[in-house]
């Protein structure tokens, strides 16, 4: 029987980490992810796990130690936020390119400057091209479930890529919710043993990792890496199906909420999707056919599936909690727009919102839907808009 628990998002992820019991966790504290290594080091101190906790002196060394550990043959995890991940930047690419399935809890926080500890998605969006699989989580339950599944996804022989599980700083990381967790043995059984094919500590052969690639081979290696990201999509679905059998909770590439017959829809990641669901219900009670698409998997980006799910909608508002500074809209908007290229009779607008933890309320999302209705009625407006800006 599943266990009901009252846990914060960070606690839920730390508990998942305990249940998975990786070989090594290397981490450096940064708000709002700090609690994850804190809780975990307590599990180590009290003998609940046999994991080596490496209290490194920086996030750069955290990811470097994760790389060394995973390459050595140990299942390895870390947690960070914002500037912490920015300091890892170089190593994020190297972890992915060395095909090491490290799992990271990325507690989304705004990047400096100005320094701000609150939530937005500038950190993970900046890392979207680093070669990591990105899973987004609306709430504590999803953070927990994504974290358990991440291990299997990354380690799958067709994938071998690192996975970051993203959830909103404070909103999700620190708020306590009732969630269902699995029994320890069920998690252990689900994730199984880590048996890499190539690893530094293999007693039967030595390996060399991280060679210099000249132009005659680098391109082929990158193409192989790109294929792993393409192939990850099916693996994510297969593992979600297996996880559903175990828990009854269904995961896919994205969640559709009342989208089937929707005329207007919002596309939004993480906790704001919860707010949007409430707005959708409210508008539906007023006869407005509103809907929501909440991407769970941002890398690989399921463009074909998203196109299918949205192609019947007349007006779409993509909400981005990251600026992107492209001058052509936020990162989620650009992806969605690209996925919907050529679909006729459709209005797509972008709203940048919530930067640096600016509160987003039900009324804000309601305004977005109303704006969409106006646009469909013929109002001309900007493609890129700012929501909740004073």
């Amino acid at each position, binding site marked *: 029987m599943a266990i009901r628990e009252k846990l914060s998002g960070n606690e839920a992820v730390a508990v998942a980490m305990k249940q998975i019991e990786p*070989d*090594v966790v*290397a981490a450096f504290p940064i708000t709002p992810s700090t609690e994850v290594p804190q809780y975990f080091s307590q599990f180590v101190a009290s003998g609940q796990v*046999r*994991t*080596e906790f*490496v*209290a*490194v*002196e*920086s996030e*750069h*060394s955290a990811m*470097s*130690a*994760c*790389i*060394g*550990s*995973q*390459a*050595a*043959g*140990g299942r*390895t995890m870390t947690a960070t936020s914002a500037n912490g991940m920015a300091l890892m930047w*170089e*190593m994020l690419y*190297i972890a992915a390119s*060395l095909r090491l399935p490290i799992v990271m809890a990325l507690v989304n926080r705004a990047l400096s400057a100005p320094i701000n500890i609150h939530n937005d998605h500038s950190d993970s969006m900046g890392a979207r091209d680093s070669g990591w699989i990105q899973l987004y989580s609306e709430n504590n339950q999803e953070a927990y479930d994504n974290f358990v599944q991440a291990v299997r996804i990354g380690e799958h022989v067709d994938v071998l890529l690192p996975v970051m599980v993203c959830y909103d700083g404070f909103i999700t990381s620190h708020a306590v919710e009732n969630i269902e967790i699995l029994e320890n043995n069920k998690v252990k059984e689900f994730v199984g043993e880590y048996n890499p094919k190539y690893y*530094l*500590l*293999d*007693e039967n052969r*030595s*390996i*060399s*990792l*991280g*060679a*210099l*690639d*000249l132009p005659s*081979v680098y391109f082929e290696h990158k193409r192989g890496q790109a294929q792993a990201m393409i192939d990850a999509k099916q693996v994510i679905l297969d593992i979600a199906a297996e996880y559903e059998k175990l828990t009854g909770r269904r995961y896919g590439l994205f969640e559709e909420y009342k989208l089937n017959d929707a005329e207007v829809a919002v596309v939004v990641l993480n906790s704001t999707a919860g707010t949007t669901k409430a707005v959708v219900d409210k508008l539906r009670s007023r006869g407005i056919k509103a809907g929501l698409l909440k991407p769970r998997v941002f890398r690989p980006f399921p463009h074909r599936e998203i196109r299918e799910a949205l192609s019947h909608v007349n007006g779409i508002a993509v909400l981005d909690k990251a600026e992107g500074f492209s001058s052509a809209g936020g990162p989620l908007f650009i992806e969605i727009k690209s996925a919907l290229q050529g679909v006729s009779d459709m209005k797509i607008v972008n709203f940048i919102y919530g930067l640096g933890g600016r509160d987003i309320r039900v009324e804000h999302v309601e305004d977005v839907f109303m704006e969409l209705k106006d646009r469909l009625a013929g109002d001309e407006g900007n493609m890129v808009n700012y929501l909740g800006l004073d």
Partner: protein
Amino acid sequence: MAYKFKETAKIPERISGGHRMCAGCGAPVTVRTVLRAIEPEHRAVISVATGCLEVSTCIYPYTSWEDSFIHSAFENAAATISGAESAYRVLKAKGKAGEETKFIAFGGDGGTYDIGLQSLSGAMERGHNMTYVCYDNEAYMNTGIQRSSSTPMYANTTTSPVGEVRAGKIQFKKDLTMIMAAHNIPYVAQSAPYRNMKDLYEKSKKAIYTDGPAFLNVISPCPRGWRYDTPKLMEIIGLAIDSCIWPLYEVENGKFRLTHRPNKKVPVREYLKMQGRFSHLLNGNYENHIDEIQAMVDERWERLLELCGEN
């Protein structure tokens, strides 16, 4: 057992020939000697910082390394190997790794004195069972001879060039060995691949078989950056030692010990004049600079003798 070069030379190589390091480079000599100190029946995992050694010994699909090898980036050879060593400890406890395995990181002075200093300091403080070896060639040679904090005063490099108003690098060389000794780790040594390699071999043995973190700083001249004829490698190392520019000593559990005392202290001029990077000091305009270097070497040497109880 007394050290016999002829005997240690029979130990199978752990880095194969055919790598692409320059003739007359000190680094591969250093690496060969360090790796020979691993007992042949023991395994090793080696991490190397980005630099000449890395780009010349592991060019896909070839590798010169008999042991498992990892290169991840420039500033993090220590952090990377610390992760591998952590995984080893837990896998061993779980019965998934059996054989005795040694963890060794190599970095140049760029990767060690400068960009990798934080990563090194962190790994040493955490107490990983590892040996970090700096092959110190006193500049960023891989990118084309730029100055580092290890570059000695008045050396000519491409970012501390000699000009009308500057005589090369105007800052003195950072004393990394002392910084590492101040970490109070079990074993720190300064060495050189010289003569019959006894000093480096024995220190490597101690470092690798010390329980806990160990650090070796090994002078490894670079013919491109130092501007010497490649056959002069050993002669230059000898002069670095005998001029007391590069003293050989070790710090074992906090106790300093001089491992070589020159019979006759050679003036630094003899060392400087063999190298093109100091040639501007010898044209008569910079005599006072040579005096300045001599004074600094003398002062550091006296301080070391005191620490070693040799006065």
